[in-house]
């Protein structure tokens, strides 16, 4: 049976076809069906994906690899530049500089927000963390194909490492942000400590979403082309440049925009860093129709927005923040793990 079996494929080289094999002994396959033989000797399919808990364990074993890979990538990213690692601090500084030039010096826009510069820079930095994590993880699989094809390791280590790179960058940005916020006249308060849990949740969200994005980017090449446009749309609807509550789209949509993950993490960190934000937040003061209406029509005095009703309760933002982080992690991890055996295909 072995020979029939071997040549059973469509368009087979019947008896060797053009090759002269006369008188040549061919190794016979065993009589047992091969799948059965494999089972008898405890052989496993090579492209099998490990069960989810075993996969997590493998991933945990690779934690040193993840950190070493992130550090190495980070260093390699700046080796071509003469200033090297200094760019890690320069990039957020220049970013802030551009916004200061345009919004602080040229336009003098406040859009009904006290300390607009602090509001804007915080929003930009926080959104940037998620944006960079998404863009970099969307190409991680195709970029690391040689590594994937050379060595066997849980592939989730790669997007994880890329998010860690962005986290390192974000921590430096936060130092720059602290200095800027102080320069705009905000005080240092205990509220600043709330940045830590907020950043932690955002990182978890980025890991989960990054895993999903990594899988999408690995088999749909168009995805990484489309992503910058999706990210820009997300930026505009997440209240980075303006207060979502001032949009003229109806309360239902405002509520939806306010609880989107990017807006949640931005609001949490703004409220932690900026006293003006906490004090002017709708609902911060008892409702006062006259003062609220004045603010809505004139957009001043800037902090009278505090006398309006909030659309979504700011006290619930922490719950939304945790929910988004957990949801993204569970769904993203599962989604990525499902295709684990296929990433080497390219």
């Amino acid at each position, binding site marked *: 049976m072995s020979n029939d079996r071997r040549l059973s494929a469509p368009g087979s080289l019947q008896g060797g076809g053009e090759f002269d094999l006369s008188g040549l002994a061919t190794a016979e396959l065993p009589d047992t069906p091969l799948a059965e033989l494999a089972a008898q000797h405890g052989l496993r399919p*090579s492209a099998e994906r490990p069960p989810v808990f075993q996969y997590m364990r*493998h991933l945990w074993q690779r934690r040193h690899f993840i950190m070493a890979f992130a550090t190495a990538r980070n260093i390699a990213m700046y080796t071509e530049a003469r200033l090297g690692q200094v760019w890690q601090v320069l990039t957020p500084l220049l970013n802030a500089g551009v916004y200061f030039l345009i919004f602080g010096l040229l336009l003098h826009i406040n859009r009904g927000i006290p300390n607009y510069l602090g509001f804007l820079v915080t929003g930009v930095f926080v959104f940037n963390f998620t944006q960079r994590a998404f863009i970099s993880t969307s190409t991680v699989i195709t970029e690391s194909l040689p590594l994937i094809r050379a060595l*066997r390791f849980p592939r989730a280590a790669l997007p994880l490492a890329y998010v860690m790179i962005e986290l390192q960058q974000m921590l430096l940005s936060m130092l720059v942000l602290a200095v800027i916020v102080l320069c705009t006249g905000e005080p240092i308060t205990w509220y600043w400590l709330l940045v830590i849990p907020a950043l932690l949740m955002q990182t978890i969200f980025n890991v989960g979403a990054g895993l999903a994005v990594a899988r999408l980017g690995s088999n749909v090449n168009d995805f990484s082309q489309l992503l910058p446009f999706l990210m820009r749309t997300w930026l505009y609807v997440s209240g980075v440049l303006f207060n979502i509550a001032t949009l003229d789209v109806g309360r239902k949509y405002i509520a939806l925009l306010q609880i989107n993950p990017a807006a949640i993490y931005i609001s949490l960190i703004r409220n932690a860093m900026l006293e003006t934000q906490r004090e002017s937040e709708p609902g911060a003061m008892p409702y006062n129709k006259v003062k609220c209406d004045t603010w809505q029509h004139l957009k001043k005095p800037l902090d009278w927005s505090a006398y309006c009703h909030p659309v979504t309760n700011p006290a619930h933002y922490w719950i939304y923040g945790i929910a988004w982080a957990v949801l993204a992690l569970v769904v993203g991890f599962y989604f990525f793990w499902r295709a684990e055996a296929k990433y080497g295909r390219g």
Partner: protein
Amino acid sequence: MAAADKPMVIADDLHIVYRVFGAGGDKGTAATALLRIMGRKTRGSIREVHAIRGVSFVAYRGDAVGVIGRNGSGKTTLLRAIAGLLPPEQGNVYTDGEAALLGVNAALLDDLTGERNVVLGCLAMGMSKAETKEKFPSIVDFSGVGDFIDLPMKAYSSGMGSRLRFAIAASKSQDILLVDEALATGDAEFRVKSHARIEELRGDAGTVFLVAHNLEEVEQTCNRVIWMERGQIVTQGENVIEIIDRYIAASGGTPVERDPVTGKRIHARVPAKT
């Protein structure tokens, strides 16, 4: 093969289909024409290449299996499938333990130094930090790249790069080692070293697959050979020398002169001792 032998790799009617994106560029070359013919039933710019078509074999513990065949016959694809990097379309490959693939094309991270690549490679294979530290000197030593170890890998010659990759992947005792022409780029000294390492790995109850165009390499290293053509097995067996002679005849090469008693090649020069 005696029945008591332990199979390490079993391929059971294995089919592998590649999906190629962006194959629409009409350059009019033979390769694109072939893709066009083979991928007729696919949509858009995604083409399918049926690279392995129903391959079955069994490799046992301690085997060194040579895979020969012309370019594009599916040798490298077969190794990738054994390593679990390409999911089968139909049929399956079964392995006992993990398979490590060593190839000339398998670059690590080119813009990082050799040093970092060694550390990352070891950690990726699941070694602990301490183990990595312990293995580091022997890997660098084995690769023979010397002072180049603290330069980025893109500064390496192709020979140096593949030596370092071989050294990294061969540092861990693998159950199954798949070598894809990695030895072809090394110099004579490195070939001797890597032969010794392959023998060692075989001794550790492992199985080695070797893809090489250098048939002498296969003859010296392997006790079994698989001859592939167009994604199928033409013939396979332990009669390595006979199969290789047929292969040479089929591809129109000059027959090898052999000693009638031992079957060894007769060389004008003295061959390198292994």
